[in-house]
């Protein structure tokens, strides 16, 4: 009984000593690096990267998943989007697309929250840039290993018998 307790005690002391040694031997801890912030100390202000040019190719990007709001493949600098004027709708409104050949708003944008389709754009969908944004050609700041369902399901078929 007492032998076991002693052994446990010795083991505990040894472990504590080992941890202490390891702690002492270690060099100063590197500052916690935030990938978005970079190695800048928390009390300093990082120098912001230069502004990039917005993508302006008019080529639609693939969506990552079916319900993703499509990105905007053109510049929207200075587009007025407020209570009075929605510049996006000048081209993307259903009534305008014959002339402008822009992509029309989907029918979901005309639905109120109860699912009734209305005659005009629903106020909750009026401010386009809440969901749709232009893109910049930049290196992502953090790694992203997202795969859409099609890719993931093709790459790793479920093992047989395991459901």
């Amino acid at each position, binding site marked *: 009984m007492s032998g076991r307790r002693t052994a446990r005690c010795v083991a505990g002391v040894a472990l504590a000593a080992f941890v202490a040694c390891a702690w002492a031997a270690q060099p100063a801890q590197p500052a916690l690096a935030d990938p978005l912030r970079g190695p800048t100390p928390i009390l300093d202000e990082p120098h912001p990267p230069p502004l990039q040019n917005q993508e302006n190719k*008019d080529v639609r990007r693939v969506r990552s998943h079916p319900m993703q709001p499509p990105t905007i493949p053109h*510049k929207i600098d*200075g587009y*007025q989007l407020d209570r009075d*004027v929605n*510049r996006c*709708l000048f081209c993307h409104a259903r009534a*305008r697309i014959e002339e*402008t050949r*822009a992509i029309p708003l989907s029918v979901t944008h005309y639905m109120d929250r109860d699912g009734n389709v209305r005659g005009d754009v629903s106020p909750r969908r009026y401010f386009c840039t809440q969901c749709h944004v232009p893109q910049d050609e930049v290196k992502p700041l953090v790694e992203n290993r997202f795969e859409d369902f099609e890719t993931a399901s093709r790459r790793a078929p479920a093992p047989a018998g395991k459901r």
Partner: protein
Amino acid sequence: MAGIVFWGGFNTALELTNTEPFCTSCHEMRDNVYVELQSTIHFSNRSGVRAKCPDCHVPHAWTDKIARKMQASKEVWGKLFGTISTREKFEARRLELAQHEWARLKANDSLECRNCHGFDYMDFTRQSPRAAEQHGTLLASGERTCIDCHKGISHRLPALPTPAPRAALSATARTQR
């Protein structure tokens, strides 16, 4: 001699009214339209070339300029009687005022735009595909002029019904793409 003095004085005074400090000496201009201009590419941009009020709103050729200045004497009347002396009055008239300018630029084939933006010198390969297509067809054929599409580029647009029906814009125009 008196003729020279009169003429010199007249022209100097005329030129004085054709400067931005003169335009923005009234709070109506300084607090409304001038503020709106400042965030646009015609005021602040990478190369520092900028448009001042008369560059867009007053013709450069002398006879046209005099004609415009005579029209603008109505603005003195407006100033005296406070037609747009408050923000609310200005907002209430924004559509009307904008339509005047749209009609003027439509009638003169966007002359003030073209004083700087020459169609003959546009490099379509440097434009976005949409812009190149529109400029290469509608603008080239003369079917449309600059102001038909490029509205609200230097000042905020008045409230227009959405989706902007063709009727509301067609007096004025087709929209920017």
